[in-house]
């Protein structure tokens, strides 16, 4: 392809289809770009970090697949050029458990949103963590249900507005790293999309780690969360993250609550060893089931 050669020579092509030239061609489905996300949305950045992380981790991409549920982040699977599955709402982790248990050679990534993973899929989340199924869960937290138009999510900070909490969210939100930690995840980190390099490193590290890893990615939702709460556009949210995030590695996860426009603590909080589900399964069965 002409354009590919041009890309190799680092020449910007003129009047040729642009799908072949981006350096992330090999991990993203460039024929589906532009994607559906709004201007100022951070999910695209999270995908870039993920793609870079995949490259950095140097794992066998053939043995890697990605699953997502429903929602804005649920569309990620369709843009990543791996074996990809776009499943039903909340069931991404359950679906991935099936893949992983039926074929333990595969590395499964569940890339989905806060509503998908923590609300309707909350049960599967804690159970997969408890079992320590070998998968990486990347949970993009934009504090709201964005695909359906800005309803209150289980992560919406107290008193923040949403269309179904027109007088401010009544319920306290989930602290995702705390749940993951207490349910038994082996790797727990949180980053905002602004710390994109650290996020990339974190993804690369988690990809290589066997067991249930969770990375919470805080992302601006310019169209719903910021708009309803009058927080400006995506860039304003990024500036807010710039001024109000603090990196504290190894922080006790119970201190990681996020309030409405309060300080966000990011970093790598948990990194421990536990036998994965398939390890325990094989070990236990080989000990108890006699031939």
């Amino acid at each position: 392809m002409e354009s590919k050669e041009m890309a190799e020579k680092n020449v910007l092509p003129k009047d040729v289809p642009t799908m072949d030239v981006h350096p992330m061609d090999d991990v993203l489905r460039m024929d589906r770009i532009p994607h559906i996300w709004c201007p100022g949305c951070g999910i695209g950045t999270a995908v870039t970090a993920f793609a870079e992380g995949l490259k950095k981790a140097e794992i066998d991409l053939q043995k890697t697949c990605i699953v997502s549920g429903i929602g804005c982040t649920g569309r990620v699977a369709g843009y990543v050029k791996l074996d990809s599955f776009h499943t039903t709402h909340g069931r991404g982790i359950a679906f991935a458990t099936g893949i992983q248990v039926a074929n333990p050679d595969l590395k499964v990534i569940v890339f989905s949103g806060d509503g998908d993973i923590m609300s309707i899929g909350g049960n599967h989340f804690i159970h997969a963590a408890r079992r320590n199924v070998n998968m990486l869960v990347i949970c993009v937290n934009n504090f709201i249900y964005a695909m359906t138009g800005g309803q209150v999510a289980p992560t919406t900070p107290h008193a923040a507005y949403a269309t179904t909490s027109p007088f401010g969210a009544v319920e306290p939100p989930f602290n995702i790293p705390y749940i993951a930690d207490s349910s038994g995840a082996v790797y727990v980190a949180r980053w905002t999309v602004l710390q994109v390099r650290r996020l990339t490193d974190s993804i690369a590290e988690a990809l290589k780690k066997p067991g249930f890893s969770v990375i919470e990615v805080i992302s601006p939702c310019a169209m719903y969360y910021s708009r309803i709460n009058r927080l400006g556009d995506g860039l304003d949210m990024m500036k807010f993250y710039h001024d109000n995030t603090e990196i504290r590695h190894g922080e006790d996860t119970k201190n990681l609550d996020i309030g409405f426009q309060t300080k966000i603590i990011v970093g790598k909080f948990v990194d421990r060893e536990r036998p994965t589900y398939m390890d325990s399964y094989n070990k236990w069965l080989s000990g108890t089931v006699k031939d």
Partner: protein
Amino acid sequence: MKTNTPAILTGTHTLSGNEACIEGAFAAGCRFLAAYPIMPALETIDRYLQRSSEVDATFIQMEDEISALAAVIGASWTGKKSMTITSGPGLSNMMEHLGLSVMLETPCVIIDVQRAGPSIGIPNRPGQGDVMQARWGSHGDYELIVLSPSSPQEMFDFTIKAFNFSEKYRSPVLIMADEYVAHQKGEVKIQPANKIKIEPRKYFKGEKDKYLPFKRDKNFVPRMVDIGENYKFHVTGLTHDDRGYPVMTEKCQEYNVHPLLWKILNDRDEIAEFKESNTDDAEIVIISYGASSNTAQKAMKQARELGIKVGSLKLDTVWPFPDKKITELAEKVKTLIVPEINYGQIVLEVERCSYGQANVVFVSHGETEIDNPDNLISIIKQSQKEKQVKKGIIEYRNETRRG
């Protein structure tokens, strides 16, 4: 393709329906089970676990039925034949994923050991209240194959058949057993493994970058590949084109969903199997499936002894429904009697296909009558008195049975 694992049972065994089901699954090549324990299907999981190390099969107990079917769909895409086992309430929970497996065209088998419903109902008593649900339970349009065994032997045979159908049509296949069949012990004759016919998965053979996950062949069945072979394909529950990419248009909806029905309906005459007996000279035909067909057989024999010309049609395949056969019978005979352990489901289909040509008599019966055909005999006698063909379903209610 033939099964070749030495661990597959052969010869004659006395097994319960639940056990026979698992043996059938192993013989058919099933190597993955995700399930959530539910009465009255518990023995299946026990049997599976006892035997799983011999045949090298995997089991995972998921946190609920929703995730059980999700895991089965995921596992099926890794190339393993997969199934799940449940009962009524579990099947209700699986309804969303039944739709997903239809849309992803994932071969998988769902065993439903029916119990008395609705809701919790009576967990340890038989029912047949889920047959309509099996066909219509998920949202949107789809067709699927539903088999209904009536004995442990059929439980074994139909499980193999179900896996074969699911691979052939890339569709979920349901087995609607019931508590009576599942807990019934019976003789199961199993052929040597190399004589059992197994339908291989329809794999894509061609250049990797030319693979389209939903490109249909002339029978409207797309080709499959396993995860982890570097095809980098995308599948989605959204309405999609051949590449598996979502397209939100009216045209694509037609393009995607209509063939889902055609792939089953075009072959409906082959799929829809039934067993006929004594229908040649019959004036009354009992149409039954599952446990009820035991009653039907006994009633037929007794009625013949009494000199009443009764025949029997046992539906092996409940869905797709054998429309033509029923219409044919309705034109020939006077009365069609449909005994079911529910309050009228398949009888509606029989009424539909009889086109007012024969009286349709519905018998709602409970478990006590499975082994005792007296009630059915009395209804046969009662139905003989009808002189004209009546519109609608006739039900002779024996009010004293109530309460």
